[in-house]
């Protein structure tokens, strides 16, 4: 199970990093999403992998560490919200400038006056 999870995290990270290096905003956002999936699984695995164990002492033979589950929940909510913000910004940038390239030229702001 450890090997499976480790390779899954590896593949997700690889996909995320590959997509992050694209030039358009949509693949970059997808890449960040994949990266956050990998990070969430990794955070979950930090509490060690156990099967058939409740996160409560006394309910089962062994117990699962409840803290990483709480941390992962927080991390999922935050990364979901952040992805939504970036999506809005990307759509706004696309509509305002007419293209969705990530790189920007050295253009000064227009509302200096």
């Amino acid at each position, binding site marked *: 199970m450890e090997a499976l999870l480790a390779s899954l995290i590896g593949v997700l990270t690889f996909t995320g990093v590959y997509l992050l290096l694209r030039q358009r905003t949509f693949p970059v956002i997808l890449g*960040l999403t994949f990266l956050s999936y990998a990070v969430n699984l990794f955070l979950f695995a*930090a509490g060690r992998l156990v099967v058939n164990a409740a996160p409560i002492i006394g309910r089962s033979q062994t117990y699962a560490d409840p803290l990483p589950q709480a941390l992962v929940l927080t991390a999922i909510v935050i990364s979901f919200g952040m992805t939504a913000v970036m999506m809005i910004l990307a759509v706004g940038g696309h509509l305002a400038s007419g293209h969705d390239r990530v790189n920007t030229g050295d253009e000064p702001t227009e*509302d200096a006056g």
Partner: protein
Amino acid sequence: MMGHWIIAPVVLPAIVAGLMIILLRGSLRLQRLASVASIVALNGIAIALLWAATIHGPEAYHLGNWPAPFGIVLVLDRLSALMVALLSALALAVVLYTIGSRWDQKGAHFHPLLQFLLMGIAGAFLTGDAFNLFVFFEVLLIASYGLMVHAGGAARTRVAVQYVGFNLIGSALFLIALALVYGVTGTLNMADLAVKLPDLPEGDVALIRVAAVMLILVFAIKGALVPLQFWLPGTYANAPGVVAAMFAVMTKIGAYATLRVGTLVFPPDLPATGDLLSTLLFPASLVTLAVGAIGVLGATTLPRLAAFGGIASMGTAFLALSAFTPQTTVAALYYILHATLATALLFLVSDLVTRRRAHARLDQATAPIAGSGLIASLYLVAAIAMAGMPPLSGFIGKLLILDAFRDQAPLVWTVILVSSFLMILGFARAGSTLFWKPADSEAPPADHPPEAFCMTATFGLIAGLALLTIFAGPVTDWLATLADALDQPTGYIEANRLGQEP
């Protein structure tokens, strides 16, 4: 003993921001009133906390009365109180300037976002829990995304996408580092980590070293350390001037977190990491300083000039931090206090100039600007402060750093002095283009009287720099006690009362 007041800098802006959105959304006048009142109250609380931390020493606030390593703690010590006081003083100047310059009329929800930003930054300074630090980072970041695109515009929105993307990668790295730390030690309370890490089993040393490097990478992204500084010039140059001034304290969060983690969690005498952090930070900060200085020399617009000035000041601050000895910490903290005020001042002055000019570019002259005598003098003061020339506090700060690095004089002194020279050149070149090289047009300058609130804010920041210069002796003495407490963090650890009922 401050009791519940320790959490006030987090709770107060949160409540005020919520009330503004629910009750005051129709009236900008009432929002301004509430915003100023909240920040004045925050200043009062910050001074009280500073006083309490000086008199009573470190004190922990256990949220929900959960005992320390299990529940989240906020810890008030001299360092966190100082940073909160710096934040609230800067926020007062920024909010006054915002009202004077009417930046808050150019888009919705400026004041609630500013309050949420204050909440996140104050929380990041006060928290004693590494995962809670991540959460407060996200709170301040999401508010900063909103402020960054305030008043809209294509260039601003597209730079914001880069800024958000860069910070999301930083958050992912932060979470990986926290997962490694938790996986190895089973705790994320920073005081508990300080107790547990010296007894780390041999097999886990490699993992904790990876975690330490990743944490430092995250803080280097926040602090705009080369090679992770690429987000800063575009972001700061394209953000509204007032927002860029407020962001002057956000890079310092990276410096604060590095100092806290580098003295408490991974101190230089920890066998697992040793001088790992120093060996990484030292060359990076030297290059940052050089990049910032060259950027000041080559900047094409005034806001970019200010942004590269900010990068150079972060290079100097991280250079002083990287040694993690009490003497260098005093120099670093004094320089951080100075650099925050000076960077904010430079951004506010650059906003004063760009709002009166047809464009912000430095290579094409425009018609002379109205009130150029006063504004040119303000620019001169800001440039002196940023370049670290006498008589302002930047000079004392750089002197303290030079003195602290006596044993590495050839390299460190050369980089600091040559970069200061380059910055003086850059500021002088920009200033002479802005104020002395009017275009041929005979048209009289457009009438644009200086706004009272803007002048109050800029002169307030100058007064802060002057006070820092005049009281350099008492301030450095106070900082020396702080640095000793960071070097021997037993007081901080005892304040957490690990494993005991709070």
